[in-house]
């Protein structure tokens, strides 16, 4: 009997026929993994355990304004892509060094992420996590993120690029919880364990 979810490494065969799977390549009519990840044989889905952020339209990102240009701002996204916001898409006034939350409009051919609907985040603290763990920090229908904000009374925003912005409440506990989620992201029953952690070290 095949295991429903298995750990695969680059070069492992996923399917013996060509299949359209993210993070996989097709060679000689077979499908192979290109990353270290969990593969679900039933759903035909490969979830990378380590990895990079691949921007798609509508992604929420957190970035830091790097430079002010004539009609645009360049944004550091802590990713292999440079971010740019055209000034007219900026909803608030910003300066160099400010933290902004924005949506991805598109990834152009030169590898620049064009952002839109950007707004400034006042104060707070920034932490970087692995982009591959972001979906786990957010959780299904934001359950994990909601649990974190409720448990620590902090305002938390998570960008798909792996930048997390936190303000108010018990930031130390929130940081510890996020680090733990990052470490144990591939295991089951994580929501319960985080709930317990937040309850025992409550503000």
């Amino acid at each position: 009997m095949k295991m429903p979810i298995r750990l695969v490494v680059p070069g492992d065969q996923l399917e013996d026929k060509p299949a359209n799977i993210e993070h996989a390549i097709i060679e000689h009519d077979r499908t192979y993994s290109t990353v270290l990840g969990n593969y679900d044989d039933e759903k035909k889905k490969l979830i990378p355990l380590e990895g990079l952020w691949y921007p798609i339209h509508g992604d929420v990102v957190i970035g830091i304004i790097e430079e002010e240009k004539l009609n645009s701002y360049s944004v550091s996204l802590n990713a292999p892509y440079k971010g740019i916001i055209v000034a007219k898409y900026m909803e608030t006034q910003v300066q160099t060094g400010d933290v902004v939350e924005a949506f991805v409009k598109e990834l152009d051919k030169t590898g620049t992420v064009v952002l839109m609907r950007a707004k400034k985040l006042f104060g707070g603290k920034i932490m970087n996590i692995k982009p591959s763990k972001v979906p786990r920090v957010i959780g299904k229908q934001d359950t994990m993120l909601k649990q974190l904000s409720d448990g620590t009374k902090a305002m938390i925003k998570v960008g798909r690029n792996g930048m997390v912005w936190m303000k108010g409440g018990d930031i130390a506990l929130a940081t510890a919880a996020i680090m733990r989620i990052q470490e144990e992201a591939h295991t089951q029953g994580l929501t319960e364990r985080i709930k317990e952690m937040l309850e025992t070290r409550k503000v």
Partner: protein
Amino acid sequence: MGSSENKPELIVNGKRLDGRAFDELRNIKIVSNVIKNADGSAYIEWGNNKILAGVYGPKEALPKHTGDPEKCVIKCRYQMAPFSSLEEHGRAGPNRRAIEISKVTKEVFENVVLLNQFPGNAIDLYIEVLQSDGGTRAAGITCAAVALATSGIPMRDIPFAVSVGKAGENLILDMNKIEDNYSQADVPICISPRTGEVLLLQMDGELTTDEFRRAVSMVQKAGETISRLQVQALKAPYERISEKYNQ
């Protein structure tokens, strides 16, 4: 190659100096994710070789002229620590040998990593030899392959490398320092195990066509063991945490 005077006997009573059989590998231990600040890292102990590999990026290629607007570039630095071997490695900066090994290592990974996904970016790959005992370029490539896979950079395969040599009439796999210095030939080979493609092939000394064929098949056979160890090293940290909770 060492001098022919005072040349030691490399094969004694049908065994090699360290008691190994002709096609036997040294003990190999690989650990992944050893450097916290790196995007990917690995450590290998291959006999007496101790090598650390770290991967950073992909990030913007700087200075700009080193980048390629159509694909990602790999910048590789192989370096031996000043205290790594009996000979002197104390001079600052890369020497002729280190530049050569950095180049061949870079070319191995250019054929494995999916470079077209990150145009204009660079991947930094650092291989530091802490202790050396022959065959460090092969061990370095094996270690760097694991480090690249842990960083999540998309790759076609996890390549392995090992060297073959010739002592007297015998072909010997995975030579150590003494064998490396006094053998008649030294052939490091890097292979992509899934496709069988040869990614690195260098030859120092002479082999006949028949010997060369046998050498390649020895490497392919040894590769099964090395690949298994690489995969184990990659999966180990995740399986450890999974076992703790998913019983």
